[in-house]
């Protein structure tokens, strides 16, 4: 049997409107077999059919057999359940007694629906409030026992960049869109309920609306990419932008070998067997924010060919060659839409790189080619950080090795010399 599909051009709570619309469809030979945002019709509609939507008391409720029998006796047939909200009844008999013979009882029938909506709204407000409160607490008030130098607000610029990620924006757009539709639907139901409870006819429906159809299309257009994006974000194997081997990574980055005086090599060139975590030692990861269209990080680790038998920076007391010099360089590069964000983003990324159980000292460095250079060290330790910026470009490095990053400012500044795009 041929099926016809239509988008419901009315609010799901515009009861008189939906009933009239279904009657119009029946007049052109269409009979509903499924009704929700998307409606399905067969060509078995009989002109003159009346439709009535009866609010359910509970979502899982089914009409009782006695109720169905009584309805049939007076000329009404049960069609199906609509969106877990209504039962749909229809009558092809023009003599059949009206389903509701007074306005008030129809108003009473909407009470459970009103309660459900109010409870849904309360639950939603509660969940969103808890979520926001939890996020705020984690971001700004939570203090880890091991964090000896906390600064809760430093990471705000990075949070801002993350907020402008496509998935987050899609989620926010969906949430706002749904909230807007819910408000409209709730107002519609309230106006119908108030009129019925005063014993008068419900306000006349404005009828099918192209705006509502367009809004539903926008909703689908938002939800589909959001769903895909959420699935992709949950499965690492589906993310082509993470764990990119450096051989296949074409963007500008500073190679670890370029700042090492001693020759160092990736593990593949030195060992037959990969070291622990070897597969993920040298890789890049891309990110995207509408505020930072170019945003990526590169992680590198390399090894000295000389084993730990001889004393070196990491192995002052080598034992049987177990340890060897293995410097590590992590770097994150940004190209921002708003140049004013460069310095705050650099400081935020430094905070993200900060190893929380270490005490850091920060100092500004002067370098003619750069707008700023912030150097961070942890006294008596092996870790250093350097954040540099020029115009809207930022590079932040975290390094463990025997070199001093300020000695390599000229090389490092190449990362922000030209556009990273």
């Amino acid at each position: 049997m041929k099926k016809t599909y239509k988008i419901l051009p009315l609010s799901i709570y515009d009861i008189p409107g939906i009933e009239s619309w279904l009657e119009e469809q029946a007049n052109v030979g269409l009979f509903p077999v499924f009704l929700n945002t998307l409606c399905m019709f067969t060509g078995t509609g009989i002109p003159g059919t009346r439709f009535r939507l009866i609010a359910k008391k509970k979502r899982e409720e089914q009409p009782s057999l006695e109720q169905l029998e009584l309805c049939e006796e007076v000329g009404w047939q049960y069609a199906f359940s609509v969106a877990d909200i209504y039962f749909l009844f229809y009558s092809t008999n023009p003599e059949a007694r009206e389903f509701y013979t007074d306005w008030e009882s129809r108003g009473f029938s909407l009470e459970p629906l009103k309660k459900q909506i109010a409870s849904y709204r309360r639950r939603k407000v509660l969940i969103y409030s808890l979520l926001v409160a939890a996020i705020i607490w984690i971001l700004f008030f939570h203090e880890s026992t091991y964090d000896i130098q906390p600064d809760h607000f430093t990471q705000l610029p990075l949070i801002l960049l993350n907020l402008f990620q496509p998935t987050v924006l899609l989620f926010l757009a969906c949430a706002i869109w749904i909230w807007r539709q819910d408000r409209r639907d709730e107002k519609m139901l309230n106006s119908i309920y108030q009129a019925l409870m005063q014993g008068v006819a419900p306000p006349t429906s404005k009828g099918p609306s192209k705006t509502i159809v367009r809004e539903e299309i926008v909703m689908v257009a938002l939800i589909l990419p959001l769903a895909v994006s959420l699935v992709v974000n949950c499965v690492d194997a589906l993310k082509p932008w993470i764990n990119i081997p450096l051989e296949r990574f074409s963007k500008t980055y500073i190679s670890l070998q370029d700042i090492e005086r001693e020759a160092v090599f990736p593990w593949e060139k030195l060992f037959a067997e990969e070291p622990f975590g070897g597969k993920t030692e040298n890789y890049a990861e891309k990110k995207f924010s509408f505020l930072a269209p170019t945003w990526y990080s590169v992680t590198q680790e390399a090894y000295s060919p000389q084993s730990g038998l001889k004393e070196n920076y990491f192995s002052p007391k080598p034992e049987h060659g177990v340890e060897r010099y293995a410097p590590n360089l992590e770097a994150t590069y940004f190209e921002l839409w708003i140049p004013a964000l460069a310095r705050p983003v650099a400081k935020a990324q430094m905070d993200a790189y900060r190893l929380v159980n270490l005490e850091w000292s920060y100092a500004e460095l002067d370098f003619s080619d750069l707008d700023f250079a912030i150097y961070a060290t942890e006294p008596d330790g092996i870790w250093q950080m350097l954040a540099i910026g020029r115009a809207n470009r930022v590079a932040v490095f975290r390094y463990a090795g025997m070199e001093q990053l300020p000695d390599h400012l000229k090389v490092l500044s190449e990362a922000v010399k030209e556009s990273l795009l």
Partner: protein
Amino acid sequence: MGEKVRGPLTEPMFYILMSFLRQERCGTEINEFVAQKTCGRVLLGPGTLYTILGKFQEEQLIEETQVDGRKRTYRITSKGRGAYWEELERLKKCVCDGEEELL
């Protein structure tokens, strides 16, 4: 917290409650009683009947006594009788007030 004060009964509500005063009834019997009592002036649609029965059950004015296959039977509770008498008194006063003005 005090119990919610119920407003006046609508006409279909009044007759449905009245139908239980002498006996327990099922949906079809209620319909017949109301149609007969009002000489067809008040006819109950199936939506009206079941919405009111649901509401009365919720407010404990009636209770279900028997489920026999498709047939569900209800009876009035003492709270239901109270609500009926209260409404009857209100209606009597209305009639009295109306008649007084005609004299």
